[in-house]
């Protein structure tokens, strides 16, 4: 299962890097969000760490929706979905491959978002190990669910707005963990219940990775 997964992820990353619209759109929207939110900061005051963390993860969540819309539309645009389904790769490998590609694309967006938060919102990243861990754990949760529900965008039903409405409430537990942990990174003080919040994010990752493995074959099929 691993080989087709990696092949698919590599193919998607290459296509997205060479002019896929999803990535650039996601990065631009996220940067714009961070900038616009910086206007809520009164002159001479800093944005509270928790507020900045919320803005960062909101930008990431919107970015993730656009990234997966782009990833799944790669096949739709060229009518290659049937080819993908006919290939000997198990369907779970398709979910994992898309999730993996989405993971790296989201990280690429966040490489831009993090300095934007530092510049526009006046934050400092004070706790690098926690920062790295938080981004990896939370991003996996985002892409696990994003890759499952992003497949909804296949066929005629492709509507980003609809996907956002469905995805965001489901992401709430993950976003709360992410905001708490990131606020700790920005303020330099570990949040109360640090292990519990990390555990919550990990539980989210595990639950929705498991659910996606079971449910993805239903979502991604040959029908229009």
């Amino acid at each position, binding site marked *: 299962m691993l080989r087709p997964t990696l092949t698919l992820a590599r193919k998607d990353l290459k296509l997205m890097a060479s002019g896929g619209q999803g990535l650039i759109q996601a990065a631009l929207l996220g940067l714009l969000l961070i900038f616009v939110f910086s206007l809520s900061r009164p002159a001479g005051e800093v944005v509270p760490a928790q507020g900045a963390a919320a803005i960062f993860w909101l930008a990431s969540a919107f970015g993730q929706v656009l990234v997966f819309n782009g990833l799944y539309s790669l096949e739709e645009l060229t009518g290659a979905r049937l080819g993908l389904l006919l290939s000997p790769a198990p369907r779970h490998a398709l979910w994992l491959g898309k999730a993996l590609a989405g993971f790296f694309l989201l990280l690429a967006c966040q490489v831009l978002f993090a300095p934007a938060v530092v510049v526009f919102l006046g934050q400092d990243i004070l706790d690098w190990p926690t920062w790295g861990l938080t981004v990896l754990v939370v991003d996996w949760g985002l892409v696990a669910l994003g890759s499952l529900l992003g497949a909804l965008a296949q066929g005629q039903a492709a509507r980003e707005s609809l996907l956002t409405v469905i995805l965001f409430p489901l992401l709430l537990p993950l976003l709360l963990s992410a905001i708490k942990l990131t606020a700790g990174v920005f303020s330099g003080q570990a949040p109360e219940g640090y292990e519990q919040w990390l555990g*919550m994010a990990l539980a989210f990752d595990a639950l929705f990775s498991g659910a996606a493995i079971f449910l993805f074959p239903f979502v991604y099929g040959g029908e229009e």
Partner: protein
Amino acid sequence: MRTTDAPMTKVLPLLAALALTAAQYAIWRYAPVEATMGLVQKIFYYHLPMSWWAMVSFFIVFAASIAYLVKRDPRWDRLAGAAAEIGVLLATLALVTGSLWARPIWNTWWTWDPRLTTTLIMWFVYAAYLLLRSAEAGGARGPTVRAVLGVVAFLDVPLVFYSARMWRSVHPAVFGAKGGGLEPEMWTTVLVSVSAFGLLWLWMLLARVAQLSQAQRLDALMVWDEEDR
């Protein structure tokens, strides 16, 4: 599973009407007026049944979604759809009545309580689910897509509840204190009200499922008709 059960849909509304009348009597005449909250506490007898049956509805969406994924029988999809509609309606009413109660008692319309947050998030998720239904997203795969969402949405509930509780861990257990202080007459009233709402809920669910399957039949007949010409 039978979707159109005529005697049930005739007897049930009658039973529901009688039970609701009895519940009104119990709420306004039988149950004592609460000492500190006064009349406002009576909202509780409407609020609790509505939120409970909303949760039951969402559980039915989950169970029917699994049944659909296993059996691929469109009747399960219709049951899930009907349950989602009633669940969103009851959750809306539960949120509104809860807010009306909280304003004089907690002195705020809204607070970050795990139950409130969980109900609101479920309201968002199932409202989106209904949007997906009405948009007929997914075309021929629509029922499958909805069933997957029905499963995923319910899996999220425990996580939402625990994360909301962790977010404001200082929040006092207001609900626990409130539930513990009920008089025996109040308990009876709660039970009567929950059962009455249950009958109403069951009738609405069955009636809606029957409606949806009739709509399905009509659609099928129209296709036949067009093919004949």
